[in-house]
């Protein structure tokens, strides 16, 4: 195990976050705050409670998930895409590090940033709406698990992408719709029956539902289903990454 190698990658990435603090932390915090102001403070009081939870508090888990997903993907995809783009990837490829160590370094840093960000957003939310966390350990577990899973997904995206557009398109065109339609702003019980069924094919539903359960003890699907689905997605990402390194796809010709 090349411990120093993993730490070198991890520290390098965390240093990148510190350099780009405005972009890494401030801009997601500002955009999420806008959601809280509009949907939580302004519109929220005029909406009825959902499952007995005030609307402003109801949307918090979904909004945290939205940022967590977007940031995990973009952090990890940029982390591996930039060295490929600038050519500095040669050094990582020629170093005595295994692919698991490379993934732990990059994905670990990306997930760390996302978790920090998620917690910062929760603190920010405190200024706009009242909320409580029923199962803090579960909340943190979902936060970490989701950050790791989607950082892995971002890592795959960063290896697959052959241009900056693709890095942007997937979060914008795929992840944002899935999050918006995944129960961030409503309970899926509120949908017509056909849409309720279709929604179950959206993996984000399980993440948000489980995360909301950790906050308020209510969920769209049973929490165990949420945990299993998250782990399934995590396993799929790991399998894809294993294949990527096995075949050298886009990394080693």
């Amino acid at each position: 195990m090349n411990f120093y190698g993993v730490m070198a990658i991890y520290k390098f990435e965390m240093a990148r976050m510190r350099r780009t603090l405005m972009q890494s932390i401030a801009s997601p915090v500002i955009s999420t705050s806008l959601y809280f102001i509009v949907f939580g403070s302004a519109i929220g009081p005029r909406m009825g409670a959902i499952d007995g939870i005030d609307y402003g508090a109801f949307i918090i888990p979904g909004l945290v998930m939205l940022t967590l997903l977007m940031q995990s993907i973009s952090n990890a995809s940029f982390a591996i895409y930039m060295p490929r783009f600038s050519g500095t990837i040669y050094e990582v490829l020629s170093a005595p590090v295994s692919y698991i160590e490379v993934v732990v370094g990059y994905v670990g840093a990306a997930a760390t940033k996302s978790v920090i960000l998620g917690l910062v957003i929760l603190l920010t939310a405190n200024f706009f709406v009242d909320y409580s966390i029923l199962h803090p350990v579960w909340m943190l577990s979902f936060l970490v698990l989701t950050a790791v899973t989607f950082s892995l997904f971002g890592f795959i995206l960063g290896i697959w992408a052959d241009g900056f557009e693709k890095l942007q398109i997937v979060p914008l065109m795929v992840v944002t719709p899935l999050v918006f339609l995944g129960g961030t702003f409503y309970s899926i019980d509120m949908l017509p029956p056909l849409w309720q069924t279709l929604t179950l094919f959206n993996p984000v539903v399980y993440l948000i539902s489980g995360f909301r359960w950790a906050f308020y003890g209510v969920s769209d699907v049973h929490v165990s289903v949420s945990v299993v689905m998250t782990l399934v997605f995590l396993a799929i990402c790991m399998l894809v990454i294993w294949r990527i390194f096995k075949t050298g796809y886009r990394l080693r010709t």
Partner: protein
Amino acid sequence: MQPDISVQNLNKVYAGGFQALKDINLDIRRGEIFALLGPNGAGKTTLISIICGIVNLSSGKVFAAGHDIVKDYRAARSTIGLVPQELNTDSFETVWDTVTFSRGLFGKAANPAHIEKVLKDLSLWDKRNNRIMSLSGGMKRRVMIAKALSHEPEILFLDEPTAGVDVELRRDMWDMVRGLRDKGVTIILTTHYIEEAEEMADRIGVIREGEIILVEDKHVLMRKLGKKQLRLLLQQPLEKVPGELALEPVELSGDGFELVYTFDSQQEQAGVAKLLRTLGDLGIEYRDLQTRESSLEDIFVGLVHE
């Protein structure tokens, strides 16, 4: 002595079907400077990239410091430092950070004293807190060398290290490379500047269209393949080469004022004496004479165009 790098029956076929390397066999000795020469696209960088782990091999075996580069890649790679051809550097990191990063990546515990020494040796110490993007091309090249030396490799690859580098820096680099060799580091360099190989290398390998066509001690190579020319500047022009010299490799040039005699440098000088005697007998006077030994460049051009 066990070679520091041993390449055995190495082949590389890229996905498109292009065979970049054909059955390469090559041993590089510990502590030598080995220059790999070849025209563009001959396979130099592919060969280096395979040994360093950046490109996968198709078949064959490669050992670095006795370690199989595939099965025992950790041990093999930790002995190798690579300075690639392209100036691929980070932009926003400082010189100090990027060199420290490289040392960690190669599995070595932090050693600020060593990094300091490397930076000082490469005249980068004053720039240690500068962002890489603010450095000139030559300075960036030094940073890449510093990164490669950060983990104290026993084998150093320099892929065209002095391309686009000014004369002063080139001299500095040559001194540095010699210094490393004196410390026992094995150095493999590819270069377009044949004078560089001529000046630096202990042995020379020539690669052409993916095949190693020659590996030879530099002095032996120059002796074996080198040609010498004797130029005689005549007092009076000649219209044609005199009949007595028709069988000799003699040519007339410079409007008849120059007689050029080409001979193998391995040959004894008997030919020259005979030529001069014949000229004396024929009463052909000359006002000056000069001999010239072919450079490695001539040899190289001759080899790759065969």
